[in-house]
């Protein structure tokens, strides 16, 4: 079942060029087609300036597209409060995304009472339920955001998002600012909540490793366009687009002897105000030909596909070695089983 359908979403920003310059147009998103199914995690990956956050904000209703169509459950998306009921968003910065003047309890209760999902009298009880769902001790409801750690704050933000009982949560770099061990906690939590509630997630990230771990499908963005999309497993096992390959190759792996021998991109991302003609990636692509300058390569919207003229003629993909050494795996297994044996689980006793 398709929950969200984006058709030809385009977003322009009008910039004034200097004191006497005319107006210039920055195209942040260029003809995005995307679908998210119920209970699915779709990840948007790409580097800064690729438009992934703008797309996330458009989905959450915080910005409107310049053109294009958004359907939710097959119907044109509503705005304001009605959209807020269906789609929520969690932001990157756990220190800036919670109103510092409100207690944790008030922060979580606010959306629930606003949408009439719970009466003011029953709100405290609902707050406790939501806090339990995100793994927070109930006593923290009295606290204020500045008294919490980054991970705890992100859990509060998640509980607040869940309070409107939405069908989709946009996670805009929701774990990127956290410590690695806390990232893993929150990622586990997201998966756990998805299992319990069947909610869909739009997971926006600049890093690939977590995306590979938690998403069902992946869309890779470069300069306002989707350049590759497909099932996460396929995209990571056999990336088709040269940009996706470069991204995967640039991600450091926590394994011995992985340094060097990377597929490196030449140069820098071009300015979005002066995009190359045709395929926007061609200025940095080792496989670019004249054809790439002539026209923009199309992208199939079904299955695993890449927007590249040379998909069929690219060299065979050589995956990197990713198996951890025997002894490390044994030690990790030991840790895992010891952690599982702890009663009550450590995580709950401490948060």
């Amino acid at each position, binding site marked *: 079942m398709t929950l969200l359908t984006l058709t030809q979403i385009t977003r322009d920003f009008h910039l004034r060029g200097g004191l006497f310059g005319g107006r210039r147009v920055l195209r942040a998103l260029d003809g995005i087609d995307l679908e998210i199914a119920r209970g699915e995690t779709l990840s948007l990956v790409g580097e800064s300036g690729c438009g992934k956050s703008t797309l996330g904000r458009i989905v959450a209703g915080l910005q409107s597209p310049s053109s294009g169509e958004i359907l939710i459950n097959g119907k044109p998306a509503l705005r*304001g409060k009605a959209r807020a009921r269906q789609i929520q968003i969690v932001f990157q910065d756990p220190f800036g995304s919670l109103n510092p*003047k409100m207690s944790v309890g008030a922060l979580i209760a606010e959306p629930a009472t*606003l949408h009439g999902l719970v009466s003011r009298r029953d709100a405290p009880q609902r707050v406790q339920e939501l806090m339990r769902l995100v793994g927070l001790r109930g006593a923290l409801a009295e606290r204020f955001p500045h008294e919490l750690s980054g991970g705890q704050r992100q859990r509060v933000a998640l509980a607040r998002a869940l309070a409107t009982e939405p069908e989709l949560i946009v996670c805009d770099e929701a774990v990127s600012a956290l410590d690695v061990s806390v990232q893993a906690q929150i990622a586990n939590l997201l998966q756990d909540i998805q299992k319990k509630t069947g909610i869909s997630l739009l997971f926006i990230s600049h890093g690939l490793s977590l995306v590979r771990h938690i998403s069902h499908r992946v869309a890779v963005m470069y300069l306002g366009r989707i350049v590759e999309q497909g099932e996460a497993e396929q995209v990571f096992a056999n990336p088709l687009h040269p940009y996706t390959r470069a991204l995967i190759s640039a991600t450091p792996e926590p394994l011995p002897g992985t340094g060097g021998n990377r597929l490196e991109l030449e140069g820098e991302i071009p300015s979005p105000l002066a995009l190359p003609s045709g395929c926007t990636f061609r200025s940095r692509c080792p496989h670019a030909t004249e054809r790439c300058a002539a026209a923009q390569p199309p992208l199939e919207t079904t299955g695993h596909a890449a927007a590249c003229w040379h998909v069929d003629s690219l060299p065979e993909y050589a995956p990197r070695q990713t198996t951890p050494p025997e002894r490390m795996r044994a030690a990790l297994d030991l840790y895992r089983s010891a952690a599982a044996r702890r009663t009550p689980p450590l995580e709950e006793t401490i948060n």
Partner: protein
Amino acid sequence: MSDATAFAARGRTWRRLRRNPMMTLALGVLMLITLAAILAPVLTPFDPYETNIRARLKPPGDGHILGTDSQGRDLLTRLLYGARTTLLIGFVGTGFGALLGGTIGLCAAFYRRLDSVLMRIIDVFLSFPSILFGLSLAAMLGPGLDSLIFAVGLSVMPGIARISRGAALSIMAQDYMDSGRAIGLPVQRLLSGYLLANAYPPILTYTTLAFGDAVLLAATLGFLGLGLQPPTAELGSIAAEGRSFLFLAPHVSTAASVLIFVIVLSFNLLGDALRDAGDRRSV
């Protein structure tokens, strides 16, 4: 580390405020003067308007703590009643200016489309000297308490509008504003519970400083004879009255001027202390 520092930041502002002796002194002086002004009818047995030709320009002492003025009225009584008027103009005028300026500033930050229009209007206001402003308003509306309050309010308003806009803009950039919009909050709740609730500290500081300016402006207008007309007691006009007898009886002008000075200085000290306490960069 960051957690630890955030933890320590709690309540730091208030503690530092209390630790600042200047601030305690300024607040004490202001409270004393305000209280005395309010309780003037109880505190003094004299009538501020009853003249006594035989007791003109008496030096301090002999039943009159601060002596008498050119009409033979008890100077301390006049000053208490004068402080009443001046503080009233200051408080109500600044309050009116803060309300108007704050609203304009917040709206300019919140509704970006209105921003340039609102701020150009503010620029126009700012380009008039406040004395000139009060002068023309007094001429237009005729002298009186209302027009004086109006003039004082309008003259402190542009500064407050600017500060409010700046403070609100930095809050608008915070994710929690978007978070509020994302859960579908109505505009009035976003403006009050989210924007104002977080943007107010610098606005409050500036408004405190503006009190001082407002009192000074009210007194200046009074001194120039554009404020309230005699025999109404007002600090500026008392000082002006005394000017004619400056060599004969210097205590009249001096006492009024010192009182104005103390009030304005206290407000400025208070504002500075608030700013220091709230300024995170000075940690």
